[in-house]
């Protein structure tokens, strides 16, 4: 086996990503065009912002998931963690709008998310248990905690809190802004910071990263913290949007987030992928859902199509990589 220089590897990787991304953008463009022709209601600017509003929760989760997947990890616990964080937030948002209540309603989901992420991260970083098993365990345990903590839904939330889910800045819904801001920030961290480079290094080749003096354990801990934080942020957005929190909220969200990441072309083996493409992957799935509902396509058919797109994306990914080699 030849060892290509680091520079060549980097250039080849960039090229593969660019080709892959072109395919992704083309797929999204085709989908948008198709729906625009088939459903007049799809073409309205209002509907565009509706899609953005609808994908915001999954998008925020997918951004956090991208960090984890880039290290060749996986976080299955985000849906359960979202439920716990949502309940915490809603319980504070039920109270009268005194300053403490406002601060706690906003801060508690993020703190719960960070705590859940810290537990995942510590177990992944310092035990030899695989991330799949660790977060499969926490998926179950966090959900159990949510149900034990509160079976009945928390509703009748304060008006200011409800407004967070409804507010629009011009035509742009606040949840969409939160999603896009999170994605932008994550993109900057991954492409412009030392930590971002370390994430790619750990996912690309863990042994080499360790040899290069990177604290692999620290990087792993932090990516699960980020994913947990995103779960908390998504909980805030979802709870404000729904006007209620439930212990059953977020079931299956982890798979939707992973789907968005994978459709966006991030490799489940780590080291390769971009947050920007995760955003496009999220939009692809969101547009598909929105368009199919507009055309009143039955939901089992929607599921089949979304499943096909996930597999198709990964297949395309593999095919393109082979042409590279």
């Amino acid at each position, binding site marked *: 086996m030849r060892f290509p220089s680091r520079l060549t590897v980097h250039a080849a990787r960039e090229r593969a990503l660019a080709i892959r991304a072109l395919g992704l953008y083309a797929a999204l463009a085709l989908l948008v065009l198709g729906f625009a022709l088939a459903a007049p209601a799809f073409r309205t600017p209002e509907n565009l912002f509706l899609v953005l509003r*609808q994908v915001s929760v999954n998008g925020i989760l997918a951004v956090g998931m991208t960090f984890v997947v880039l290290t060749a990890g996986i976080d299955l616990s985000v849906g359960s963690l979202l439920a716990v964080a949502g309940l915490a937030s809603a319980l504070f948002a039920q109270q009268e709008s005194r300053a403490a209540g406002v601060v706690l309603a906003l801060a508690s989901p993020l703190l719960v998310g960070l705590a859940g992420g810290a537990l995942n991260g510590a177990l992944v970083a310092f035990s030899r248990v695989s991330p799949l098993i660790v977060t499969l365990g926490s998926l179950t345990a966090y959900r159990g905690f949510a149900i034990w903590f509160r079976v009945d839904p928390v509703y009748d939330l304060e008006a200011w809190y409800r407004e967070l889910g409804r507010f629009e800045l011009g035509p742009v819904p606040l949840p969409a802004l939160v999603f896009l801001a999170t994605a932008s920030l994550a993109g900057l961290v991954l492409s412009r910071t030392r930590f971002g480079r370390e994430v790619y290094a750990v996912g690309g080749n863990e042994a080499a990263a360790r040899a290069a003096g990177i604290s692999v354990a620290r990087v792993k801990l932090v990516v699960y913290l980020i994913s947990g934080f995103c779960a908390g942020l998504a909980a805030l957005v979802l709870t404000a949007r729904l006007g209620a929190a439930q212990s059953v909220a977020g079931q299956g969200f982890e798979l939707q987030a992973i789907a968005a990441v994978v459709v966006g072309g991030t490799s489940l083996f780590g080291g390769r992928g971009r947050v920007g493409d995760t955003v496009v992957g999220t939009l692809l799935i969101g547009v598909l859902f929105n368009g199919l509902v507009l055309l009143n396509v039955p939901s089992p058919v929607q599921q089949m199509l979304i499943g096909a797109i996930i597999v198709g994306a990964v297949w395309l990914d593999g095919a393109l990589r082979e042409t590279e080699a």
Partner: protein
Amino acid sequence: MRPGRVRGLRTGPAVLAATLVLAACSPSGDDGARPGEGAQKGPIVGVSYQALRFPFVAALQRAARARAEVLGVRLLEADAGNDAAVELANVERLLRQGIECLAFEATSLDASAASIEAANSAGVPVVQFNGRANGGRWVTFVGSDQSESGDLLGAWLVDQLRASGTERLRGIYLRGVPGQVTDSARSTALRRRLAREGVSERLEILEQFADYDRGKGQAVTESLLASHPDVAFVVANNDDMILGALEAVEVRGLEGRVALAGVDGLPETLERIAEGRVRATVFQNPEAQGAGAVQACVDHLAGRDLPAEILVPFEIVTGENVGRVAEIARRVYAR
């Protein structure tokens, strides 16, 4: 397991004394407790719940506990967590613990038969409640006919159409989970009612599954309202989805122009009905089912004859009767 407190019951601290002075403390509502026989040394009744993570099942539990307290029954409870294998293990444990009657809320139509058969071979009588399994022998079933809820929802829709004075009405029907028994029963009965009233052609119904989920109910309604601004009603196979739809309707500023109706009678929906933001729901009575199951066990052990089915009727709730139904909901749902 989270200990469910029975709040808002009228029994209060009198409960301790109640075993002695039972007559003073009959719970309000339904068929009325029959205290007496079990007072000195009440029977041990096992209860297997489908999944206590569902608020409705938690409400069944509160009702069962309240009735057990009144009747002096000792309850041994188990949560199947919607898993027929766990359910069977639980029931076997309960049987070893010496229960005299099993109040059984099945997780599955077919797979739950094993639990009933286990009780049969142990010689312990079974009372099924809320969810019914096919298999084994049981004394009676205390529960509701899910078709009735769909029928009442259909009747409400017919009323909406007639009251609108228009020839045609377009609306959204949010379904639960494809293939799920309750969802199919409600949907079939709703369609049958529309056909019987001869209005099927006049109602243009956009139908989508939303998995009984509040968020999906909201998202589906948002998308459909964008493409069909003339939607006049949304009906849903449960309350969670209609509460999601309410949020979608209000964000678009369509409140008052889209009539909403669900099934369940969750406290939140009842509040929205009282406020006039949701028009109706079909109330499924957890108090009558949970308390009725314990009552049926006690009655059977006391040698009374029971019918093969003790049906708990559904009831359409609108602004007119919401106060009375909210009373029941307050007793069995935690706040």
